[in-house]
């Protein structure tokens, strides 16, 4: 009997252009084995995952290749395969569950036709994913569940049919660490109990490392490295895989994450030759013209790079040199409370930002991090309390603040895809901000050049529109927009969470440099505990509207006091390539 899942030379292409989105992918998977599929956003992970079910999104088509599940071939029209032999857990269950249908209806649809007792199957699977099984619960609509519950419903739907193969597309993205841990455990258990083969898609290397047996690294639609997880994570051979792994922040704090400059190309802007060569530190001229083949280095370990033998230059990160600590407080928050209507979101918050330091504000989704940051910036009216800056109480709303105060405190938003006006060039965006707060610039050319330089953007970017830039570049523009007015305090609200790890790492490096050079005071809002260690000097932990713990970085990891903090640290997936899989 052949392996449960066999994929041979799979190609998915854009139906109009014929450009390959997923190019020539082959692999095999045994029962009970988990394959991790990693790569940056846009590398084709979802496309590949869907293709395994014989499905192509509109605008794309499966151009060639064959897929077998056991003896059965998967084609786009084969019935009785999709949803039966192979099932899918979607990237975002919130949008993948039909909002107008009850859970029961949606679960029932997954039961294979002809089953004797569908209710008992549903019952059993719900138990397995630790969800209630009563009627009342099943009569609910998706919006009546929490994000974690929605995700578990999606998992249950995939297991109801008792498939041979499951494709999981980033099933934990967007969940907080504790829920993520539970979900991962559920998946692991189910895979083992039912001996299914699983394809686990994620851009979060740390999560993948916890779960998988094999790993496949995709770059711009092509497999660049494929092999046993332990081997790939410990000794990545492809320069991209190596850099990708080095970019993952390490919870233990043994090494700093190192970013990759630039962004991953989309299939339509893919450079000739090796698609990675523009970002590669060991590329030679040949890489620009010749597309390398996937070759087997050792048994079951494949790499698509002709220069695997070369020893790469050591990765240096600008290790945060210990700053001299002066304990002057730049801004202090005193018993601030904020509520939305009757619902109080923040309660009596006290917080000090020490001058020239980076203070991290850590907490789970919904704990009120953004609300606090916005209240400081004057975007969110507070119901009580004060924010002291420069010896004066800042007015609650931006409209009442003086221009000088506005200039000194700058706010950077989470999502670089939304925070820059798409209808203006970068230059216009930067100038508009400067002009409003500091008046007409004397030499705008120079000003722009300086601002772009400070965030390591090429000067040509000035005349581009945001959609001509990658996510990382956009976030740099957003930072430049804040820096151009020469602020004293930067409030960064999750500015790296919508970016790929490789980009995240380089933004963190940038912030560190700026902090040092400009003596900036930072408030760094994040839910990523591993990242905190690499950027901040102080931490405040926020739990449902209360600051539960405030400490220095060293202290918080060594001696977390509050049980909530302890749980956060325990649940965070830790990734240490030296140890390989956790």
């Amino acid at each position, binding site marked *: 009997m052949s392996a449960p899942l066999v994929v041979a030379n799979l190609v998915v292409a854009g139906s109009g252009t014929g450009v390959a989105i997923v190019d020539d992918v082959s692999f095999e998977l045994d029962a009970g084995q988990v394959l991790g599929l990693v790569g940056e956003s846009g590398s084709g992970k979802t496309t590949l995952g869907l293709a395994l079910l014989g499905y192509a999104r509109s605008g794309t088509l499966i151009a060639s290749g064959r897929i077998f599940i056991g003896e059965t071939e998967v084609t786009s029209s084969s019935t009785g395969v999709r949803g039966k032999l192979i099932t*899918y857990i979607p990237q975002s269950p919130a949008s*993948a569950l039909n*909002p107008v249908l009850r859970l029961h209806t949606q679960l029932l649809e997954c039961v294979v036709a002809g089953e004797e007792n569908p209710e008992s199957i549903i019952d059993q699977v719900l138990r397995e994913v630790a969800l209630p099984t009563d009627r009342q619960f099943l009569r609910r609509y998706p919006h009546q569940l929490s994000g974690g519950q929605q995700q578990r419903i999606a998992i249950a739907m995939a297991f109801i049919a008792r498939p041979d193969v499951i494709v999981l597309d980033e099933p934990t993205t967007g969940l907080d660490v504790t829920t993520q841990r539970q979900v991962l455990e559920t998946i692991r258990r189910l895979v083992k109990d039912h001996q299914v083969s699983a394809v686990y898609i994620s851009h979060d290397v740390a999560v993948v490392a916890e779960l998988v047996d094999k790993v496949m690294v995709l770059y711009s639609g092509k497999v660049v490295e494929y092999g046993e997880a332990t081997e790939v994570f410990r000794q990545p051979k492809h320069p991209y895989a190596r850099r990708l792994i080095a970019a993952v922040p390490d919870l233990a704090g043994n090494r700093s994450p190192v970013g990759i400059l630039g962004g991953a190309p989309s299939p339509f802007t893919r450079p000739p030759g090796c698609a990675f060569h523009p970002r590669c530190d060991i590329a030679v001229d040949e890489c620009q013209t010749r597309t390398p083949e996937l070759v087997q280095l050792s048994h079951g370990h494949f790499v698509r790079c002709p220069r695997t033998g070369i020893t790469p230059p050591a990765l240096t990160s600008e290790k945060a040199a210990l700053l001299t600590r002066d304990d002057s407080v730049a801004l202090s928050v005193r018993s601030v409370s904020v509520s939305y209507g009757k619902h109080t979101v923040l309660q009596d918050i006290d917080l000090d930002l020490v001058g020239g330091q980076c203070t991290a504000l850590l907490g789970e989704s919904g704990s009120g991090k953004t609300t606090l940051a916005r209240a400081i910036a004057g975007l969110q009216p507070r119901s009580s309390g004060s924010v002291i800056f420069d010896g004066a109480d800042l007015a609650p709303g931006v409209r009442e603040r003086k221009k000088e105060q506005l200039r000194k405190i700058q706010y950077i938003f989470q999502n670089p895809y939304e925070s820059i006006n798409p209808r203006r060039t970068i230059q216009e965006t930067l100038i508009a901000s400067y002009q409003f707060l500091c008046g007409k610039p004397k030499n705008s050319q120079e000003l722009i050049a300086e601002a772009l330089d400070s965030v390591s953007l090429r000067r040509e970017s000035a005349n581009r529109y945001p959609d001509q830039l990658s996510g990382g570049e956009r976030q740099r523009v957003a930072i430049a927009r804040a820096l151009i007015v020469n602020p004293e305090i930067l409030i960064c609200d999750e500015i790296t969470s919508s970016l790929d790890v490789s980009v995240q790492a380089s933004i963190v490096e940038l912030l560190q440099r700026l902090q040092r050079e400009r003596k900036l005071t930072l408030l760094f809002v994040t839910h990523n505990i591993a990242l905190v260690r690499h950027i901040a000097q102080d931490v405040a932990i926020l739990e449902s509207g209360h600051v539960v713990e405030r400490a220095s970085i060293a202290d918080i990891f060594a001696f977390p006091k509050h049980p909530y903090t302890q749980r956060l640290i325990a649940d965070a997936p830790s990734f240490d390539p030296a140890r390989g899989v956790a």
Partner: protein
Amino acid sequence: MLKMIGRRLLLSVVIVWVVTSIVFLATQALPGDAAKAILGREATPDRLAQLRQQLGTGKPVLEQYYSWINKLVHGNFGTSLASNQPVWTYLKPLILNSLTLMLIAAVVSASIGLLLGVLTAAKRDSWLDHFTTVVTLVLAALPEFVIGVTLTWLFSTGVFHWLPAIYAGAPGQSAWRSPTQLVLPAMTLVIAVTPYLARMLRGTLIEVLETDYVQHARLKGLPERVVMVRHAIPNALGPVIQVLALQFAWLAGGVIIVEYLFRFPGIGTAVANSVATRDLPVTQALAVFFALFYVTVNLLADLLTLVLNPRVRTAS
């Protein structure tokens, strides 16, 4: 949700009140009075004075407004100046006729529109889709009087002689009783409305068909028919209902021209007549009717949308 519905109801009442008040005041501003309009050419000063006295026009506006509102609250629309009947007696059969026509048009066009919309969305980019797109585009571009004139020529006077060209049902007799005479007016309205519905539904459905939950339903291995009926259509109905409502509210206006073309005794005839004869009580009653119709249709659409949306329905 009850609170929401209550709020909507209250707002609707306010809107009707504002509209009717404006109409009342606006109609008072009309130059010339009913007496002159009724007498037309024969309006010699003697006769005018006599008729004016008979009609009781010429009191202060506020006084008239107050007594009008007062009567209105008690369901009394006053007496038509032109026909000297109670307004409601005069308007009731006309309103019923128009509602009959609009209801037929609404039901037929909604069914055809929905069917076409679903078919074209399901078979996107097929020849059926392209053909329907072109046809609906052209039909939507034709003014309804052109459609009406063409239909009459085609089915009644020119090519075929299948259907009556105009409505000549006995007055007072419900329009239901003369079904063949309803065909052409209804068909005209249907052709004027359906293209919008079909195009709108197609657009919304295509959007819905691109959503993650539809994709997921397909990945569950559900047949396309089930995906469409169970997953896609219910989600497309929300926005479509709003458009349906707007289109049906539009019918109230479109019916005026269609009634004129087919000599259909309905509110369109009443509107033209009452304005021409300065029959203020009738004009005002009609404005109340139109505002009520608009508000009711929209209210129903809003409620339906609310009911279709479990998020709102389940909110306590």
